[in-house]
């Protein structure tokens, strides 16, 4: 038995020696360093967040985006021009990012694991991770932050101001409708938005109010809570509505038919990115939701 141990040790040592042997060969090549002139004009950007992608495009740098995450779906053209790297939270591979030879990596803190952040930092490529706040001011700040990271020289004020102008001509409701947001992933996976979520912010910006007031974040939906909350309208992402087989599927969710929203068939579906990105289209999103609510209220 001892002999076997020795053999294993010897095998390991041999193995180590073989792999280290090459270290002894030192090459005397002259050190030639090519100074790459870093010009901000043609950057290769990897954007790991839908809102950030929107801002980059709004600033006119869309052509420089070489890689994007799965949530970067606006503008439509970016889907074709930049490579889809998958889900940030489900392990975007750093190697796939590096393979695009980016000069700048941008993302937001919320969707990145500390590990991914650490690896991106270690890659030596310039990267900025933004802290996003889901409000009008937050959206404006994100626009300014991204512009700074890109070294963008132009005026960003028009883009920021557009959010405010979009918000000026909202329909005023006599009584703010109660909106319930359902996050659906198939009929057995229904969560509703509580307080403190990006969705709640956009609902409030649209001049309506969140039907849920007694818990924070997302919680599973129960028929009883649904009837108790009695929302005037139910809001879903387009993709969520698809996962429960469209509006008819939503109306079939137990308890929906007992609410005002169900009785009046007031089910609204909107693009998820538009609603929750809180980028340059924040005003647009609130306005679109406001108009749909007003139309259905008639």
């Amino acid at each position: 038995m001892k002999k076997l141990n020795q053999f294993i040790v010897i095998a390991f040592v041999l193995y180590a020696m073989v792999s280290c042997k090459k270290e002894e060969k030192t090459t005397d090549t002259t050190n030639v360093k090519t100074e790459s002139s870093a010009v901000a004009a043609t950057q290769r950007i990897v954007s790991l967040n839908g809102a950030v992608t929107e801002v980059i495009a709004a600033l006119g740098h869309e052509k420089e985006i070489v890689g994007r995450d799965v949530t970067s779906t606006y503008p439509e053209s970016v889907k074709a021009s930049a490579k889809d790297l998958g889900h940030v939270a489900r392990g975007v591979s750093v190697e796939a990012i590096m393979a695009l030879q980016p000069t700048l990596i941008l993302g937001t803190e919320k969707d990145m694991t500390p590990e991914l952040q650490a690896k991106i930092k270690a890659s030596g490529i310039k990267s900025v991770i933004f802290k996003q706040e889901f409000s009008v001011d937050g959206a404006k700040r994100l626009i300014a932050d991204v512009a700074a990271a890109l070294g963008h020289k132009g005026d960003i004020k028009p883009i920021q101001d557009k959010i405010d102008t979009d918000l000026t001509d909202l329909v005023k409701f006599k009584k703010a409708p109660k909106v319930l947001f359902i996050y659906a992933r198939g009929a057995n996976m229904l969560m509703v938005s509580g307080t403190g979520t990006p969705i709640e912010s956009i609902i409030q910006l649209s001049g309506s109010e969140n039907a849920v007031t007694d818990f924070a974040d997302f919680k599973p939906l129960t028929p009883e809570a649904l009837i108790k909350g009695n929302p005037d309208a139910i809001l879903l992402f387009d993709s969520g509505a698809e996962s429960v087989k469209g509006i008819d599927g939503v109306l079939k969710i137990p308890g929906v038919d007992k609410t005002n929203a169900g009785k009046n068939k007031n089910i609204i579906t909107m693009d998820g990115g538009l609603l929750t990105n809180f980028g340059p289209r924040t005003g647009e999103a609130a306005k679109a939701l406001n108009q749909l609510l007003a139309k259905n209220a008639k």
Partner: protein
Amino acid sequence: MRNKLFLYLLSSFILLSALAVWSLYSGVFVFEKHSFLEIFNGILTNDGSIDPSERFVLMDLRLPRVVMGILIGSALAVSGTCLQGMFRNPLATPDLLGITAGASVFAAITIVLGSYIKPYIPEMLHYSLLSIMAFLGALLTMVLVYRLSTQGGRTNIIMMLLSGVAITAIGFAVMGLLIFFSKDEELRDLTFWNLGSLAGATWAKCGILAVVIGISFALLLNKGKALNAMMLGENDAQHLGIPVERIKKQIVVLTALMVGACVAFAGNISFMGLIVPYILRLIFKSRYNIILPLAAVWGSILMLTADTVSRTIAPPSEISVGVLTAFMGAPIFMMILIRNRKQM
């Protein structure tokens, strides 16, 4: 026999080295036209011939991953082999004893409640909190199983397996509860982590794993002869002068240690402890003095192959390696069941 084993080990090592080079060379990132030697020299001598991002991909992404694959594959295969020898049953794996479940539950609790615990622990531990908790979970489970099944220094194997089953059941319940109450991003974390992947490989993790595995192997790899004797029955082995109880204790504790560390760093990579010993047993029968050291190398070979495939099969994203190993392991699991149907 001794010489033969050495030969087997050596050829396995050569194969593993070749695989490691292949794995290092394959991936989404495409290198400039350097030969392997040029890259090797460039990295060692740091003479500027290698682009910094190539260097980063090789040294900080692929190499730690290759090393971690080698370590984890080895650890899981040896754990499985030892447990199977101890239970005299080809189905005994860390998953069956609930070690994996215990580690997973602790990790899941950490994922969901982490934000509440974080303020009370030093900054340094934040990143490794998950790992430490999974590790504690594995150890705690093992101690619990051991306490439940051991009376007066004698282990009742059936009791032990059943406690493992009970703990796994509790684990599933806790897991389900946590998944139910977790936020969306935590949920993604949990599901992703449950599948097992080597994507989070870093040098620090490799270092910790190497220490844990080094200590465990030093004590376990020479137990082949004893396990062979224990095949005859524990009493007979005792009469042959083999300290059965002590060996069992060592196997239990060290396996928990290794599996805990693996689950912490890579999530649940299932069936590794089943596939490797099964294949080796097909060739060498149940001669543990041969199977045990070979399992250490072949575990690495299998893991490295599976992980390289998982990295390169669907670019630019990665499939979790746990999915692949489960695909390989499940049919083997069925085969063992069918073979042993008469004895069950």
